């Protein structure tokens, strides 16, 4: 992807960045689909919904419905909200089961109190931390979002956000506004020692103090991404990177003699004795 080395939220506001071309690319990229699927699965796991009960959930920043499909798969009914018409159009084309709403999360959730049994959000919250317009104040928008979300959740419901925080200040800003809005909870970090596999999940509880689930680590069984090289008995021999022979070996000597012959100097003939190991006494 063109923006892989930069943060997308530094390039343009979300409704501009996720235009038709980007929306199409996003939803057809198999790697993106796989990652989003995995994160949605993990977020749903962290939501700890009661087994076998179909619930009414909110998907914030639902985009083209990649995460929403997962909710449908688990038997839940959901409403998705997103700011990009292009992404929502792709969701419609993909015929997602959830109801879609076009809205700006920083303006507040337009729902009645006690509507949802839970909320998930995949890779969306970091967009709120940047001021895209002169009138935007990120802390205020974050607070508006969290406070309206808090009221639209039933007592005891959870909200799980998978985010890509830019730095610790951003993380602090987000958690501070969430706490101010009345949420309890904290961050769950999966694979904290791996740069590639590390994922941040902000788990918030509305009304009931819950126990924060543990983050995944490479020590925990099958899902681990190995972040340590297993003991290897081999001594690694590095080939000479420059492509030249190591100095003073027989190859080097022969090359040097050839070079000097080309220069026109008088050089001894190459024999089986060339470059042979002599006794130290020599």
């Amino acid at each position, binding site marked *: 992807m063109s923006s892989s080395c930069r943060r997308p939220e530094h390039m343009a506001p979300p409704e501009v960045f996720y235009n038709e071309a980007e929306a199409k690319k996003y939803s057809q990229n198999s790697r993106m689909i796989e990652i989003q699927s995995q994160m949605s699965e993990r977020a749903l796991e962290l939501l700890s919904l009661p087994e076998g*009960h*179909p619930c*009414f959930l909110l998907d914030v920043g639902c985009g083209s419905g990649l995460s929403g499909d997962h909710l449908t798969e688990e038997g839940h*009914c959901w*409403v998705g*909200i997103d*700011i990009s018409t292009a992404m*929502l*159009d792709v969701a*419609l084309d993909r015929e997602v089961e959830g*109801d*879609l*709403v*076009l*809205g*700006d999360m*920083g*303006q*507040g*959730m*337009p*729902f*009645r109190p*006690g*509507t949802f049994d839970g909320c998930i959000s995949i890779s969306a919250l970091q967009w709120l931390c940047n001021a895209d*317009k002169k*009138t935007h104040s990120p802390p205020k928008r974050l607070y*508006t979002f969290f406070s*309206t979300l808090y009221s639209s959740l039933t007592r005891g419901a959870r909200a799980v956000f998978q985010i890509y925080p830019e730095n610790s200040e951003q993380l602090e800003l987000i958690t501070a506004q969430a706490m101010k809005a009345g949420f309890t909870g904290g961050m769950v970090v999966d694979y904290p020692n791996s740069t590639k596999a590390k994922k941040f999940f902000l788990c918030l509880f509305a009304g009931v103090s819950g126990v924060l689930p543990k983050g995944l680590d490479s020590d925990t069984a099958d899902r681990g991404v190995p972040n340590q090289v297993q003991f290897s008995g081999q001594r690694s021999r590095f080939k000479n990177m420059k492509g030249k022979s190591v100095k003073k070996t027989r190859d080097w000597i022969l090359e040097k003699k050839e070079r000097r012959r080309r220069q026109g100097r008088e050089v001894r003939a190459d024999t089986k004795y060339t470059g042979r190991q002599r006794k130290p006494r020599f």
Partner: protein
Amino acid sequence: MKLLTHNMLTSHVKGVTKGYPLLIKATEVKVSEVEFNPQFVSRMIPKLEWSALVQAAEEVGHLNDLPTELLPDYENNEEFLRKVHRVLLEVEVLEGSLRCPESGREFPISRGIPNMLLNEDEA
């Protein structure tokens, strides 16, 4: 936009105290078939504003024989649950608009998606 979602939507414009229920003006309505889950329907009923649901169903022309008052002991009444299921999940508004009862502000609906984006002065 399903009527279940409509029952939960309010106007969140700054300064509006009674932005619910939003009045539906539908130009295109669709009825589809959705798998009936009695457990989900009976769990959602206590969350609903019943009068708003009846009003919405009437506005889209699908009131049919939905009772105007919520029946007690609805959990075991499968016929009633089916009627509710139909109105909540099978009737969809594709084109039209939602109108705030207090301010009159309209939220357009296009391809089934209501546009709840607010202007700078409304947020």
